[in-house]
């Protein structure tokens, strides 16, 4: 199964993601979840970014928080709402919201 997971918060139990085992995993960072793409704690990036997944972050939610492409700390693709629609319909079969 090709699964797109929306991560909408910075503080979350990533164990939920550990229990998922799709053939293809996409992680879409939205709302306060965008901080996973920008914040380092004690010099380390978010553990969320260590998974075998394709990562995306919503541009609108970055900009709302005064962030941009220069703040991204890993190989994460910046996308807009239209891109999310295409991911949902063309790249992934199921979605989940965390």
């Amino acid at each position: 199964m090709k699964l797109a997971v929306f991560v909408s918060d910075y503080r979350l139990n990533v164990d939920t993601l550990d229990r998922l085992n799709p053939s293809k995993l996409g992680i879409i960072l939205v709302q306060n979840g965008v901080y996973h793409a920008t914040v380092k704690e004690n010099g380390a990036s978010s553990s969320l970014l260590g998974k075998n997944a394709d990562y995306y972050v919503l541009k609108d939610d970055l900009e709302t928080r005064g962030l941009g492409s220069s703040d991204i700390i890993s190989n994460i693709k910046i996308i807009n709402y239209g891109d999310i629609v295409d991911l949902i319909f063309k790249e992934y079969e199921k979605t989940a919201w965390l």
Partner: protein
Amino acid sequence: MGKFTMGCFSSLVGSMSLDFAVKLSAAAIEKGHKVDFWVSGNGTMLSIKGQRAFKDYSALMKPVQELMGKGLTVTACEACAEARGYNKEVTMEGFKRHSMDWYLASAFDADRVLHIGGE
């Protein structure tokens, strides 16, 4: 083009999730998809007419009305709305009200589903 069913259980004022859901609905409609949008729990606040837009709050009534004009089907959980005193008389024109069976039927029939839980 496909059918996209989305459910949102989050509240209206200050809700990032409901704001996200409306913007994603707009993007999906723009790309030619059919969108069924279900609001439940405190998300039923979206169905009330006469919402006043403040500068620093999420104001979604006008965008939703515009999207309904472009084909968006938006439905509120009737029981959730009634429990909050949002009766039929205060529901904006075009906003449907049904039991959760409507959401389940729409999701079952959809090509893609996104379920956004409550806050």
